[in-house]
C-alpha cells in the first residue's frame, strides 16, 4: 500500500493540495464553480495545519491499526481487502463524527449538509493523488509504506 508523506521542510502551506482535492471531489470539475456555485459545496478531504513556519498537509494515513474503523457506530468504515485502504460506505454513514473524535489526526471530515463523513481515498481513479500531482514544491511524496516492502 502507498501513502502520502509530507516533507514539512518544503511545505509552505500554499493550500494548493486543498484546492485540487476540492476540485477533484466536485461535480463540475471547474474550479470557479466548485468554489463558488456548486451545492452541496464540494469538500477537500485534506487540510493544511499551520503554526508559525510549520505547515502540514494532513490527510488520512490509512493506519494499519485504524481506530476509526473500530469506533464506527454503523460499520460504514472498513478496510478494503484489495487495496488495504480505509474506506467509508457513504450509504451507511450517518455523519455522527465518532470517527473524527477517535482519529489521532482528527481528519475524518463531516459534510454537514449531506450528513456524511468524507475521507481521502488516495484518488483511486488517478495515477497519482491529485494533491501530490499538483504540489508545486514537491512537498508531498507518494511512496510505499514499509510493511508492504517486507
Amino acid at each position, binding site marked *: 500500500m502507498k*501513502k502520502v*508523506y*509530507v*516533507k*514539512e521542510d518544503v511545505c509552505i502551506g500554499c493550500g494548493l493540495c486543498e484546492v485540487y482535492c476540492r476540485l477533484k471531489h466536485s461535480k463540475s470539475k471547474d474550479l470557479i464553480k466548485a468554489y463558488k456555485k456548486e451545492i452541496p459545496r464540494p469538500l477537500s478531504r485534506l*487540510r493544511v*495545519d*499551520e*503554526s508559525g513556519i*510549520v*505547515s*502540514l498537509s*494532513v490527510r488520512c*494515513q490509512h493506519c494499519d491499526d485504524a*481506530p476509526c474503523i*473500530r*469506533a464506527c*457506530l*454503523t*460499520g460504514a468504515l472498513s478496510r478494503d481487502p484489495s487495496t488495504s485502504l480505509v474506506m467509508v460506505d457513504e*450509504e*451507511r454513514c*450517518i*455523519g*455522527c*463524527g*465518532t*470517527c*473524527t*473524535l*477517535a*482519529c*489521532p*489526526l*482528527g*481528519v*475524518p*471530515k*463531516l459534510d*454537514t449538509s449531506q*450528513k456524511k463523513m468524507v475521507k481521502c481515498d488516495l484518488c483511486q481513479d488517478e*495515477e*497519482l493523488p491529485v494533491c*501530490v*500531482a*499538483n*504540489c*508545486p514544491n*514537491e512537498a*508531498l*511524496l*507518494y*511512496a*510505499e*509504506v*514499509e510493511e508492504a*516492502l517486507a
Partner: protein
Amino acid sequence: MVATKKTKYLIIGNSAGGIGAAEAIREVDKTGTITIVSDEPYPAYSRPLISEYLALPCPVEKMAYRQPDFYEKNKIKTLLGEKVIQVNPDKHTVKLESGTTLGWQKLLLATGGTPIFPEMEGNRLKGVFTFNKLDDAKAIDGFLNQHRGRLRAVVIGGGLIGVSVTEALLKRSVEVTVVEMKDRVLNTILDEEASVFEAQALVHAGTNIITGHTPEKINSYLLGEVCGVTLDDGCVLPCEMAVITIGVRPRLEVVSESGIKINRGIVVDRRMATSAPDIYACGDAAEAHDFVYGENRLTPVWPNAYEGGRAAGLNMAGKPTEYQGGTAMNALKYFGVYIASAGLVTPPDDSYETLINRYDGIYRKVIIKKGKLAGMVFAGDIEKSGIIYNLMKDGVNVRKFKEVLVADDFGLASLPESIWKDRLESSPPEGVPVVTSIEEPEELVIGD
C-alpha cells in the same frame, strides 16, 4: 440431560463487543469454532441507528453492522433468538432457555445493557416504551402507525437515549415533552454550556423541556392506554405515549448466581478477564479500565465495547493483549448541532485546570489535571477533536503547550514537533521509490 455440544469460543451478545471479539479471534485463530448466541433475532445491527430507523422506517438490512456474508465468511455459528439463562463457570457450560446446554473453552460475556425501568404506577400501560434495541423502535413505529392524527409523547429522562428518541419522534410529527430530573439535559456527557446549545436546538425544533422534576405516575383512563404523566409537583402532562429513557444498567442476570465478581458491572482486568478462569467480559456489561479515572468504570459507549471486545478476543485466542482502556466518549449531531465530548466535562474540584475558547459559534474546552488531559468538550465544529482525544488517551503531558489546544487555529502543527512527527510518520522508509508531482512546475518569473 441434553447432550452438551462444545464450541471453542462462545460469545454471548451479538453487538459491538461480541463482533469485536469474533473479528479479533479470527485474526489469530482461523479455525477454532466460534458461536455467537443472542436473544435478539437479527444479524448484528448498529444499535445507535434505531433512532434513524424510527425517524424514517427503513429496511433492517440498512442497519446491518457487517456485510451479509460476515458470519459465513468468518465461520461463525449463530444462535439468534436464543436466550442464555445461566452460566456455569466450573463445568464450562451455559444453559439456554430452550433447554439446550452448550459447552465452551473460552466464554465472552458481551450481554450489553438493559434500560432502567422504574417501579411506577402505570409503567405497564400500552403506550409505554423503552428505547434500547431494534424491537423497541419497531414497537414505537407500530404504535405511531396505528394512530392517526396528533400524538403527544412524554420522554422521561433527558440523556443521550432520551434526546435520540425525541429527535426521531419529532421527525414523525409527534409533539414531545422531555422530563429531566436534573437541571439540564445531557448532564452526564456535556458541560453546562454545551447542554444549553443542545437544549436550545431541542426547543427550536419544537420540544418542550421540563427540568428538575420526576414523573410520579403514568395515567390511564381507557383500556389500559396512556393518557398522561403526572409529575412530582402534581402537574399533569397529557400524552398518548411515554418513553422511559432514564438510563441503562449492565445486563447481569446470566451471571448473577455464577460467583463471577460483579461490582456495578462485571469486573474485568486489563486483559478483559473476569474473576472466573476462561471467562471474559466487555461492553456495557463490563466494568473495565477507564484511562481518565485510572480505575475500572462503566463506560457504556459503542466504540469502547468494540475495543474491549477486541482485546478480549485476542486474549481468548491466546494472544496476550492489554486493553488500553476507554473513557466516556460521544460525538453528537442532534438537530444539526455538532458536539464531541470525552472524559470529564466538568472539573470535580479545583485541582483541575479548565481552558475555554469561544469564537464564531464554536466552543472548545479542555480539562487538565497534573499536566494531563482529563476531559474535553468541542461544540459547533468537532473537526480535529480526535487530536485532543488521543493526547488524552495516550496520557501525553500537555503542560507546556496547553493554551494551543483550544486556540482558534489549533491543528497538528500547533503541537510540539516530536508529537506531530510521530503522528504523521512524516518520511517514507529509506530506499523506497518516491513519486512527487508529475509535471515540471511552471517557471516563475520574479520581479519582472
